[in-house]
């Protein structure tokens, strides 16, 4: 245990300082560890369920709240914010107290943090299946929950953490703390700015950004959620728990410094690599790619520092399953952070984007790095926080091997699936110049067996989490009647600090080199960083500055340069009914399987039509470009199918598209649309800049009229009568609009105006037919 004598050693003139006695709060660590295990089980189980219903969509029997489009966000949110989130908190609460030689500043705030976060998770688990979503990946939660996250994260957790740093009794901050600081600051920033919305209901809102800019903000957020929620805090975790478990010094202090700052500064630029070949301006895409390449070594700095810390301790790894978890975890980190830059190269991304390759990539990161680092930490913590022996060491070993096999059985088939489908999509018959695989569903059917294999891998991984849960509960049962609370004594930090470290010297001092050379040599020894480590507030400000400067370099031009989004004269706002249909599209989570962004590639435009232009999305709040094509791209879906076809397709997709994995949406054919809710949509869109006129006063009636026209079309095409009030009609109206403005000419507009009356007649005629039937 750390003692006062250790503290007094070295450099100090702490004559005025006094000894403090205190204890660490391990109860909060026990709570977060318990929550981690519980949510880890939920997150992986929901993952398993979505993997199953993806292959067997009939299993959901058309129930909307368990359809793939609604459950997949629940899975990702649970994995990131519930499982990884609670793991981070457990790690931070345990290690920060010890690294600072201080109890958390406020036990009350610790508990508010714990219960607040769990309440947020529960709110997510309720609202997402009900279809309340912002539809931005990993930022799906609606605005009231977002506000709760911001408050709990920044003020409760962040405040408590920073105050603990300020009240620490260890003069210098260890590298783990640097990573925690970067995590707290950046996640708050990302979360707040990506989730700026204008609400039009308790759980409904429009993004303040539209189209290209919304996409940019979302992937600035999305990529850095990976960076600052799933990477930096886990690096902090690694820097504390790995040397502890291995009982070895960390490989290189200098490497810690350089890889920390370069990681923090470079990561934040890399977001646009999620949007290669899309309507995002090309310069932004290039920046995203190049900064991802530059990120390779800073990321590997963490891996090297982790793995080389085990130098001379490999015999321990062979015997200790905890170290095995860490070694495999860090290795997966190295693999994923090599693959990340690789996937960010435009030509590689051209193949991988929209395929399962991305899914395999994130799972090698999430299951391998986040999962295994968490499991290693929990197994190291359990005997310490429950003050007893591990119930079964053999089960820990079994968990390790089961999960390792599970990961491999998950990622190998999914890598293969991604590569296969990507190659099938782009293949052009060299003789005829036509698509080699024109039928999209064939490309899906060819990877379904690989999806089935993944279920097995997922099953093994969930099995591992169950073993962890059993082992944790059994260990808990052997805890002492009352926990021992060791009293720690440490010297309080003096107000003034006299740095006794001798001035850094250089071997070049007497050499015949320029003064600048000598200065650089001294700088390269990095003793200047030591001073920063004594100043938590300054350190936090510097980290914030690094992140902010990088962000602004990209963000400001994206928003200010008008040529990024050239205006297209024929692009007009959605009609009131189409807006309502769009809300259904978002609520059902269609974006989880359908992209709306055709890339400028011949194989793609042959399949889907003219590639997407930035000006087509100026009324899209939020954007719906998607990231994975489990189904076809819908950017030019308007007019591609008859309205009756859509109706039939929602009723039973497989009946028109044999082999389709889309679940049925017959509930949309039965439920009535709430027309009275439409004016709120129109008004909010108008406030955000959509030029509406008659729509502002007459939205409901206009929507109803358009619904009657669509319904009449369906009747005339052989469909059922009297369906104008159904939700599906609004959704069909939206789908029939997609991508059509780009081809509209002035003549069309005149024709459309004239056509409305004819359409009205058709509607009347259809009604007559319906009645006579």
């Amino acid at each position: 245990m750390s003692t006062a004598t250790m503290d007094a050693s070295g450099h100090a003139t702490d004559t005025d300082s006094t000894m403090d006695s205190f204890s660490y709060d391990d109860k909060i660590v026990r709570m977060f560890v318990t929550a981690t295990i519980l949510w880890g089980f939920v997150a992986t189980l929901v993952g398993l369920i979505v993997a199953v219903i993806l292959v067997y969509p009939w299993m959901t029997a058309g129930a909307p709240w368990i359809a793939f489009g609604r459950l997949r966000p629940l899975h990702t949110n649970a994995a990131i914010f519930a499982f990884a989130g609670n793991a981070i908190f457990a790690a931070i609460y345990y290690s920060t107290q010890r690294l600072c030689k201080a109890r958390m500043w406020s036990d009350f705030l610790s508990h508010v943090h714990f219960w607040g976060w769990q309440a947020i998770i529960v709110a997510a688990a309720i609202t997402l299946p009900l279809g309340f979503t912002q539809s931005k990946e990993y930022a799906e939660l609606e605005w009231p929950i977002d506000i709760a996250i911001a408050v709990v994260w920044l003020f409760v957790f962040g405040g408590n953490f920073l105050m603990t740093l300020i009240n620490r009794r260890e003069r210098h901050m260890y590298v783990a703390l640097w990573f925690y600081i970067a995590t707290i600051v950046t996640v708050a920033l990302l979360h707040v700015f990506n989730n700026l919305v204008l609400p039009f209901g308790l759980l409904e809102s429009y993004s303040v950004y539209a189209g290209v800019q919304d996409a940019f903000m979302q992937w600035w957020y999305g990529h850095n959620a990976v960076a600052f929620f799933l990477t930096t805090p886990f690096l902090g975790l690694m820097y504390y728990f790995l040397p502890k478990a291995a009982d070895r010094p960390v490989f290189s202090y200098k490497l810690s410094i350089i890889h920390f700052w370069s990681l923090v500064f470079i990561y934040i630029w890399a977001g646009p690599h999620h949007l290669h070949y899309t309507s995002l301006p090309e310069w932004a895409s290039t920046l995203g790619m190049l900064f991802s390449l530059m990120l390779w070594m800073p990321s590997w700095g963490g891996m090297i520092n982790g793995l080389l810390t085990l130098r001379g301790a490999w015999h321990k790894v062979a015997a200790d399953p905890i170290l095995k978890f860490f070694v495999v975890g860090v290795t997966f980190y190295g693999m994923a952070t090599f693959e990340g830059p690789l996937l960010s190269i435009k030509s590689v991304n051209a193949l991988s984007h929209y395929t399962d390759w991305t899914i395999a990539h994130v799972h090698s990161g999430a299951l391998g790095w986040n999962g295994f680092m968490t499991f290693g930490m929990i197994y190291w913590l359990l005997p310490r926080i429950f003050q007893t022996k591990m119930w079964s060491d053999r089960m820990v070993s079994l968990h390790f091997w089961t999960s390792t096999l599970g990961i491999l059985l998950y990622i190998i088939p999914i890598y293969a699936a991604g590569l296969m489908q990507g190659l099938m999509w782009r293949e052009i018959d060299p003789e005829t110049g036509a698509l080699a695989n024109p039928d999209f569903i064939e490309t899906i059917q060819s990877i379904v067996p690989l999806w089935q294999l993944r279920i097995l891998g997922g099953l093994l991984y969930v099995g591992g989490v169950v073993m962890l849960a059993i082992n944790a509960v059994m260990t808990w049962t052997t805890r002492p009647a009352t926990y021992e609370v060791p009293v720690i004594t440490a010297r309080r930090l003096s107000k003034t600090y006299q740095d006794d470290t001798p001035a850094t010297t250089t071997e070049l001092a007497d050499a015949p080199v320029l003064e600048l050379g000598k200065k650089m040599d001294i700088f390269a020894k990095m003793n200047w960083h030591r001073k920063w480590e004594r100043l938590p507030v300054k350190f936090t400000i510097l980290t914030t500055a690094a992140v902010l400067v990088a962000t602004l370099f990209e963000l400001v031009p994206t928003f200010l340069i008008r040529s990024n989004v050239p205006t297209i004269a024929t692009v007009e706002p959605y009609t009131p009914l189409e807006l309502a249909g769009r809300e259904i599209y978002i609520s059902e989570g269609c974006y989880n399987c359908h992209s709306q962004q055709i890339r400028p590639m011949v194989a793609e435009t042959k399949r889907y039509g003219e590639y997407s232009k930035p000006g087509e999305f100026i009324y899209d709040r939020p954007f719906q470009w998607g990231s994975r094509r489990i189904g076809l791209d819908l950017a030019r879906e308007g007019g591609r199918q008859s309205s009756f076809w859509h109706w039939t397709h929602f009723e039973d997709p497989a009946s028109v598209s044999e082999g389709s994995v889309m679940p049925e949406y017959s509930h949309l054919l039965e439920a009535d649309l709430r027309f009275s809710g439409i004016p709120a949509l129109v008004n909010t869109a108008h406030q955000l800049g959509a030029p509406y006129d008659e729509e502002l006063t007459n939205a409901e009636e206009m929507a109803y009229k358009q619904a009657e026209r669509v319904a009449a079309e369906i009747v005339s095409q052989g469909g059922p009568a009297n369906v104008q009030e159904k939700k599906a009609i609004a959704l069909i109206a939206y789908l029939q609009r997609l991508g059509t403005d780009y081809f509209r000419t002035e003549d069309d507009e005149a024709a459309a105006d004239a056509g409305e009356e004819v359409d009205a007649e058709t509607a009347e005629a259809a009604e007559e037919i319906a009645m006579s039937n």
Partner: protein
Amino acid sequence: MSSSTTSGSGQPELTSHDYDGIQEFDNPLPGWWKWMFVATIVFSVFYALYFHIGAPGRSIAEQYDAELAANTRLQFAVIGDLTADEATINKYIHEESWLKVGKVVFQANCISCHGRDGEGKVGPNLTDEAFKNIRNLEDIARVLNKGAGKGAMPAWESRLHPNEIVLVSAYVASLRGQNLPGKAAEGTAIDPWPEYVAPPKSDVEEQPTEG
């Protein structure tokens, strides 16, 4: 790995740091790590300059245009621009290699309504003898271009190349008469497609072989 600062015992030097028992070695940055990092930065500068200096043909849009032009040449250089008249469509019904191209267009765009083999689903069965909007071969191309049945059949004019319209028309025409079990016959029976007289063997160069 680069040389690490080692003390006499061959062990790297420790810093004086100690945090809750965790110590740190004072190892220098691994040389390969440092130089790889520098290399990625240097590469990035050159990459950005190359693609964004404004030289023609390097932007994504320009690359796409070139790729599309090459593909169009590969597909249609031999046959030139086709007009969707009866004679042309009839000709391609009997050019098997071109019929294959029409089939690909059909598979990419038409099977969701007309079925994989044209047996009909929401849209009519194309393999029987009854037709709703078609009296002759030219009508097929017209319906493809403009649509029919108030949007029941979408218009494909703005989505497909005019040659693709001809070729898919030929493919659809070729399906007639198979009478596959599928959607029941709709519309009325029409005259058979006109006789086709193969031209003398002089047009072998029209085979879509080399690009």
